[in-house]
């Protein structure tokens, strides 16, 4: 399986070769996308440098028990005098690594299954879309909890794999619908007529046109993975000796931080999660608007114009992003 994996996903990492420069720039020009990327970059820096930036050892206890935020402890201290800021800084890496690893694995799975099923059609398609529909309706979180709690030592890699295993179906469904609509386009038929091999058609004719869909699926899965992972840590299923934002919340909850009014113990971790999640969602909005121009709010220009029927300046044909109802069902 690993061999096929590398084969199929290689182009996904490369930016769309066919996209003209102007279009790509427009994607980056959007304020939403740029804000999202900036916040994400900020957290990426923390993930790399967090352990060095942390002013204290996150495990070290001190005599400052349950202190409110101060100059010495920006985010206050826990009931054993541990520094909350250091815990969050050190925990950033785990959050991002698991999130992106799970997102990557799930994207690989969804591309493999979605594109194959959309391109092949027939019985293989029936079977594969059945599989992804099944995974789509089975609630993910309880399944993740059960698998994770059966395993003795829960490493980051294992958590990421379990999350990926339960979250690939959504992307796969969208990719299948998209591949279905691409498969019969003229240029694909032309490629087939000139004798290109099936693999070449999939990799070089179909995949580049799926880049935006794959990217938005990837970002969406990362959001889901981060939330699931933090949830697992918060419930106490994941390894609680390993710092991440969920672990901070786990200790806060189990030591009655709420009843003692120690808001600084759980507010920063939650805000970090929300900020990171918002950043990723904004990036996804950017991708969505890039694919489907009708979703763009009237940024810039005359804001006074009230959008009404007939004002929409974009042609209705050829929006490849959102498959219409008929295609996706």
């Amino acid at each position: 399986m690993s061999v096929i994996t590398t084969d199929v996903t290689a182009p996904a990492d490369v930016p769309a070769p066919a996209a003209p420069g102007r279009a790509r720039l427009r994607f980056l020009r959007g304020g939403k996308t740029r804000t999202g990327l900036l916040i994400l970059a900020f957290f990426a820096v923390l993930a790399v440098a967090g352990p060095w930036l942390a002013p204290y050892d996150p495990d070290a206890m001190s005599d400052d028990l349950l202190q409110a935020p101060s100059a010495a402890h920006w985010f206050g201290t826990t009931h054993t005098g541990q520094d909350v800021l250091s815990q969050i800084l050190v925990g950033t890496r785990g959050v991002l690594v698991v999130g992106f690893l799970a997102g990557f694995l799930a994207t690989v799975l969804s591309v493999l299954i979605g594109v194959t099923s959309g391109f092949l059609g027939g019985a293989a398609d029936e079977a594969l879309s059945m599989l992804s529909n099944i995974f789509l309706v089975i609630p993910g979180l309880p399944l993740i909890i059960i698998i994770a709690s059966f395993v003795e030592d829960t490493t980051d890699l294992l958590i990421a794999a379990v999350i990926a295993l339960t979250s690939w179906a959504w992307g796969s469904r969208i990719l299948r619908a998209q591949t279905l609509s691409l498969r019969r386009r003229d240029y694909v038929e032309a490629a087939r007529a000139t004798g290109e091999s099936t693999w070449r058609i999939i990799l070089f004719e179909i995949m580049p046109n799926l880049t935006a869909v794959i990217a938005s699926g990837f970002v969406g899965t990362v959001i889901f993975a981060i939330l699931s992972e933090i949830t697992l840590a918060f419930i106490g299923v994941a390894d609680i000796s390993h710092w991440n934002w969920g672990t901070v919340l786990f200790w806060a909850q189990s030591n009655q931080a709420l009843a003692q009014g120690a808001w600084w113990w759980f507010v920063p971790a939650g805000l970090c999660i929300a900020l990171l999640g918002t950043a990723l969602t904004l990036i996804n909005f950017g991708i969505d608007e890039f694919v489907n121009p009708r979703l763009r709010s009237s940024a810039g220009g005359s804001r006074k114009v009230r959008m009404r029927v007939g004002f929409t300046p974009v042609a209705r044909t050829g929006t490849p992003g959102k498959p219409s109802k008929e295609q996706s069902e």
Partner: protein
Amino acid sequence: MTYVLQRLAFYTVTAWAAITINFMIPRLMPGDPVEALMSRYQGQLDTSAIASLKALFGLDENKSVWEQYTDYWSHLLDGDLGLSFTFFPTPVGEVIAQALPWTLALVGITTLISFLLGTGIGVYSGWRRGSWLDALLPVTTFISAVPYFWLGLIAIALFAVKWPIFPFEGGYDNSLVPAFDWPFISSALYHGVLPGVTIVLSAIAGWILGMRNMMVTVSSEDYVMVAQAKGLSERRVMFGYAARNAILPNISGFALSLGFIVSGTLLVEMVFNYPGIGFQLLQAVGAKDYPLMQGVFLIITLSVLAANLLADMAYALLDPRTRKEA
């Protein structure tokens, strides 16, 4: 009719798949955590309880996998999910039966509220694209990025600890005996406000965004323009022509997002110590109570499937195309 039958067949297969996953998980995992649990309770388990635990968790080494599988099914069909260790020696089925109504009520009411409210706001903000309602989008984005349980923690910190308006845990006043009378129901409603508001707040963003995007797409369709050209009132065009067509994908999205909603509700229950199955799942995880965990997973999955089937039927009623094509 064929459409409904098709969906029914699909959910049957899915239910079978979920049960089979449930069968396989303990057998694929290294070590025998259940065996350890059983040896701890050795003297207190009677023979039938041992037999059902062995069948459910595949501890009977002498049997082939196929025999284990048929055994497993026969126990399930008897409604025998094994014994809970957290609430020893109550059977898992009974434990879940006590908790399920709480979860169903919480999920049902909050989902209905957030669906109606979110769709309504989505219709408006999609129709009046570019108005002040667009400012709502970043806010909803932010809220939807917040984990359900953290929003619950904040709600407790503000409205139960700082300003003690609402109780911070439990599903009803402990001095009351659960019964169908006014004191108990009002107490249950009172205790349900904070968890309910938390879930509605987290869930509503998805409805608003989905509905807004569909409204934006639909409002540039020809039939909307025709309706407007005929001089129909704005309200009539918005609800009768645009929203009516835009809502269909939101309903099929409803079915798919149910799994997320249920997962979120489980977490909120954990935070509020609400007496539903989410809280029991938390206790089961803490005590490594595998029979209860697996029972909870099974019941949650089957309920989600049933709800999905209902949503599909509603879809079939609303969308004449499914009836005609079938």
